[in-house]
C-alpha cells in the first residue's frame, strides 16, 4: 500500500457475463477504478467483439469479449450471470480467483432450505457458509478479507436501506406489519428482454409486475428479520429502484426519534444521503438523483394521524443495487479505499435515466 491509500499494484479482475447490464456496468467501473485492471470480460454471444460493440459508453476500452470457458487467473472474479449459473460454475470461479463476487441470488441466502422454498434448490450448497452478503451498510466485518461475496438483490437493497434504521432503533420489530411498495426501472429485467419489455409495451407503465411473493422477501427476512408485504411495480425509467415502506410502529414516535435513528445508522456511511423533507423540488429520495452513482438516498415522513412511518429509499439498481455494491464490497474485502472507483456524483438536470 502506497502512501496515498492506493495499493502498489492494481488488482486484476474478470467479469463473467460482461455483455449484460450489470456486467457492462462492472466493466465501466473497473476500467475507471484506480486500483483495478480489467483483464477479462466474457460473453458467449459477442465473443471477440469489442466491449464498445455492446456498450457504447465503453468504445474507448481496448478489450474484446472472451468466452466464459477460458477463465484467466485473476485477483477478483465478478460474476453477473442469471440466477443458477454461478452455483453451477462456482468451483471454476473460485479456482480462477482468490475473491469471487457474485451478483446473482446464488449465494445470498445462508440456508440451503431457503433455496428450496424461494428458488429451485441449490446445486453447490457447500459454499453458502463461505459467502458474505455484500451490502456494507449491513455490516462490514464479514466482508473484510471475504473470498466469496454475494451482492444483494436490487429491490432488497432499496428496501433494507429504507428500513434498517427503524429496525436498529427498535422502532419496528419483527411482528410489525410493514408494506414495501416498489417502483422499478426496466434495466432490472436485464439485457434479454421479452414481449413485455419492448419499448411500445413497456413505455409509460405503472405495471404491478410482482404483486405478491417477490423472491427478495427471502433475503430481507434473513438480513433484517422482517417479514414484509412486498409489491413491485414497473414504472417508466430505465435505471432506478424506489422503495416506499409503510410501517406502523406499536409505540408512538416523533420526527426527532426518526432523525435520530437515521442519522445513527447512516451518518458515517459514505454512500447514503439522507433526504427527508426540506424545501425545493427534491425533498424525498428520488432515483433519478442517484442514477449512475453508488449512492442511496434515504428518507422518511411521519404520519401521526395514522400512526404510520413512511420510509423511502432510492437507488440505481444497476449500481448500488448491483455493480456498484459489488465493487464497494470488493473494495472492503481487499482493504482498498472504500469509495475508490465510485466517485461519480450523478447528474442534474437529468430526465429519465
Amino acid at each position, binding site marked *: 500500500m502506497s502512501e496515498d491509500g492506493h495499493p502498489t499494484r492494481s488488482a486484476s479482475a474478470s467479469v463473467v457475463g460482461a455483455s449484460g447490464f450489470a456486467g457492462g456496468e462492472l466493466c465501466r467501473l473497473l476500467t475507471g477504478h484506480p486500483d483495478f485492471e480489467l483483464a477479462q470480460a466474457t460473453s458467449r454471444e459477442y465473443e471477440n467483439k469489442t466491449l464498445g460493440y455492446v456498450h457504447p459508453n465503453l468504445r474507448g476500452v481496448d478489450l474484446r469479449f472472451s468466452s466464459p470457458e477460458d477463465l484467466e487467473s485473476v485477483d477478483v472474479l465478478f460474476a453477473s450471470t442469471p440466477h443458477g449459473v454461478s452455483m453451477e460454475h462456482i468451483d471454476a470461479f473460485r479456482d480462477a480467483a482468490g475473491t469471487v463476487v457474485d451478483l446473482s441470488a446464488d449465494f445470498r441466502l445462508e440456508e440451503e432450505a431457503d433455496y428450496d422454498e424461494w428458488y429451485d434448490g441449490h446445486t453447490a450448497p457447500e459454499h453458502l457458509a463461505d459467502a458474505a452478503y455484500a451490502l456494507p451498510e449491513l455490516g462490514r466485518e464479514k466482508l473484510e478479507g471475504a473470498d466469496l461475496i454475494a451482492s444483494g*438483490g*436490487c*429491490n432488497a437493497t432499496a428496501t433494507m436501506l429504507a428500513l434498517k434504521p427503524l429496525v436498529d432503533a427498535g422502532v419496528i420489530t419483527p411482528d410489525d406489519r410493514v408494506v414495501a411498495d416498489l417502483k*422499478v426501472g426496466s434495466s*432490472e*429485467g*436485464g439485457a434479454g428482454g*421479452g414481449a*413485455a*419489455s419492448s419499448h411500445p409495451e413497456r413505455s409509460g407503465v405503472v405495471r404491478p*409486475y*410482482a404483486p405478491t411473493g417477490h*423472491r*427478495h422477501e427471502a433475503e430481507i427476512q434473513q438480513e433484517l428479520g422482517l417479514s414484509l408485504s412486498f409489491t*413491485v411495480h*414497473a414504472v417508466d425509467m430505465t435505471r432506478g429502484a424506489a422503495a416506499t415502506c409503510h410501517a406502523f410502529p406499536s409505540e408512538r414516535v416523533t420526527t426527532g426519534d426518526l432523525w435520530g435513528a437515521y442519522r445513527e445508522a447512516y451518518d458515517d456511511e459514505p454512500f447514503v444521503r439522507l433526504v427527508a423533507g426540506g424545501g425545493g423540488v427534491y425533498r424525498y429520495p428520488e432515483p433519478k438523483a442517484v442514477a449512475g452513482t453508488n449512492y442511496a438516498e434515504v428518507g422518511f415522513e411521519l404520519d401521526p394521524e395514522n400512526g404510520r412511518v413512511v420510509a423511502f429509499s432510492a437507488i440505481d439498481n444497476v449500481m448500488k443495487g448491483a455493480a456498484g455494491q459489488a465493487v464497494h464490497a470488493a473494495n472492503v474485502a481487499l482493504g482498498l479505499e472504500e469509495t475508490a472507483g465510485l466517485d461519480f456524483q450523478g447528474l442534474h438536470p437529468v430526465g429519465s435515466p
Partner: protein
Amino acid sequence: MTEAECVECGGTVALHDDLEIGEIVDCETCGAELEVVDVSPPVLDRAPELEEDWGE
C-alpha cells in the same frame, strides 16, 4: 357455441365448437388461462402457469 364456468372467477367462458382436450383458452372475465380437461360437457381447469420472470 358452448359455455363453461371459469374455475378462477366464476365467469362464463364462451367456447368454440370443435373444442379439444388440452386446448388452452383464456377467460373473458379474469383472463385466466384455462385448460380444457373434458369436452362433453366442457370442463375447464386452471392451466399450468408458465412462470414468466419479469425481472431482476
